[in-house]
């Protein structure tokens, strides 16, 4: 096989795995948007916040340590423990649930029946608040996140593919793990929404608020539930991203890539979020590979947005979004 083709295949595979992470963040957006019609700008920051909290808890970092030290002249830094990642993840999930409850109590509850744009603005506020709050709580330095996931280039794939094609593919084990975890996560979510009482209630609320109320569903409970699940998805995305490139504040920016993913996949479609994520992941890697050199590179910064723009022109409802038919 010609080398370029093999190389393109490798780039595609890597793109697919980058796409998995986009898809994860996009999935969080879709869940909340479907259930409450809220476009949650803070989804990316939630991933960052979850990752920060996880590192902080696992390493026994004293929350608000810097602030406390300034005020009380103490020198607190750590509690001196290191927790296993399972414990850390469970505790962080607890924090995300508390966060969901607070968001419902302090924001959503007061904005019911407000126009969507108001709720959207509220989530922008939430995003900046959480970014600052995360900074204050855990500090702004780049942190290493190690939950014991396999890392590094997979030798097996390298040697196997070398044996087959005379060209070894470089695939990061972490990317493979991320793909498997994401697939598991989506499977669990689908099972949950199809086969549990709460899942059924969630789908009902996503479909029609009035009808949902009439069959005895508490909207506020469902909102807390959905934001908790979105928090869980954010935690998974945060772990993967953090393990890959360290936990840093730019994570919330990368997460904005979920926006073009949503334009592609449609804001209300879970399969759309996944396929959209993969298309953007692969598309931007291949584009960078083939076209990048001709235009001076760095196409990954804008490719996704241009692709989404083209999509908006030709298929505004996205790949899987419900068709928009104007009622006349």
């Amino acid at each position, binding site marked *: 096989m010609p080398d370029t083709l093999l190389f393109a295949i490798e780039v595609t595979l890597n793109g697919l795995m980058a796409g998995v992470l986009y898809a994860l963040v996009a999935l969080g957006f879709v869940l909340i948007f479907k259930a409450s019609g809220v476009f949650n700008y803070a989804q990316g920051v939630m991933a960052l916040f979850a990752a920060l909290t996880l590192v902080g808890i696992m390493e026994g970092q004293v929350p608000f340590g810097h602030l406390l030290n300034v005020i009380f002249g103490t020198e607190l830094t750590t509690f001196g423990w290191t927790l296993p990642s399972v414990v850390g993840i469970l505790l962080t999930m607890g924090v995300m649930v508390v966060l969901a409850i607070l968001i419902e109590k302090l924001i959503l509850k007061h904005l019911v029946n407000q126009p969507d744009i108001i709720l959207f603005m509220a989530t922008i506020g939430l995003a900046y608040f959480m970014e600052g709050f995360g900074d204050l709580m855990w500090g702004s330095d780049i942190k290493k996140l190690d939950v014991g996931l396999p890392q590094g280039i997979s030798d097996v794939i390298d040697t196997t593919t070398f044996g087959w094609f005379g060209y070894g593919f470089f695939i990061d084990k972490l990317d493979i793990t991320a793909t498997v975890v994401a697939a598991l996560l989506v499977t669990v979510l689908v099972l949950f929404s199809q086969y549990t*009482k709460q899942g*059924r209630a969630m789908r*009902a609320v996503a*479909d029609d608020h*009035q*009808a949902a*109320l*009439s069959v*005895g569903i508490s909207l506020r409970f469902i909102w807390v539930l959905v934001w908790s699940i979105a928090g869980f998805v954010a935690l998974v995305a945060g772990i993967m991203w953090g393990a890959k490139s360290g936990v840093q504040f730019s994570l919330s920016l990368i997460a904005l890539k979920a926006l073009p993913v949503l334009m592609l996949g449609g804001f209300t479609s879970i399969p759309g979020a996944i396929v959209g994520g993969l298309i953007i992941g692969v598309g931007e890697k291949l584009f960078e590979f083939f076209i990048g050199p001709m235009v001076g590179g760095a196409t990954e910064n804008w490719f996704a947005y241009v692709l989404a723009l083209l999509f908006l022109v030709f298929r505004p409802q996205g790949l899987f979004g419900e068709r928009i038919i104007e009622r006349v």
Partner: protein
Amino acid sequence: MNDTAVTTTPDGRTIGGVLMEMKHITLRFGGVEAIKDISFDIREGEIRAIIGPNGAGKSSMLNIISGFYVPQEGEVWFRGVKRPPMKPFQVAKLGIARTFQNIALFDGMSVLDNVMTGRLTHMSSGLFGQALWWGHAQAEEVENRAKVERIIDFLEIQNIRKTPVARLPYGLKKRVELARALAAEPSLLLLDEPMAGMNVEEKEDMSRFILDVNDEFGTTIALIEHDMGVVMDISDRVVVMDYGKKIGDGTPDEVRANQDVIDAYLGVAHD
């Protein structure tokens, strides 16, 4: 009639004591008084109709009973106790189910799934319970499923069980909505214009279903209709509303003979 008297209808059904009582209800939207100091009761086992011209305040009354609207004045009594202000989902849990004038179904779901949501108030297993007691949750699911299938058979919608409701014609949608409300096995069933927009044949079917539900399950039914004819045939007692006021209350015959009602329906000038 007093509160506990048990009576028997001409067709042999038993009407029990007062199940729900509305006392001096007043509801305003801004400056508009949609309901003005209305009182009436609903007895156990009866079919109670609320009729009146468009805009009379009928839907608003039903919305108050089901917790969607909160009246500025008045009290709602259920099973002999004054009901505190409640959210619609809490009212549903009391065993009060409803349909809407402008059909509110879950368009993304099949008929079967729509009707299954009617069972939500009967599903006990919590979030973690379901994960830990998978077997129990499954048994519950099977039991609920069986109840739902019975209702689907009862309303003769077996052949569309798997159809997404968005694809159904209007008349069938109304029937699915009724099925979902029935799935809750309500003690009080509220129907907002169950026959509106239907042709004669569909209206007859719906009338028959309403009578059968009341007869077979003993369900108390309060229904709204602005077509006098149909309503007079199927209801035990009728409240007549006009411009937010109650202008008549009694058996169909009594109401038909009431001069205010005749005036309202013949369009005699209001003053």
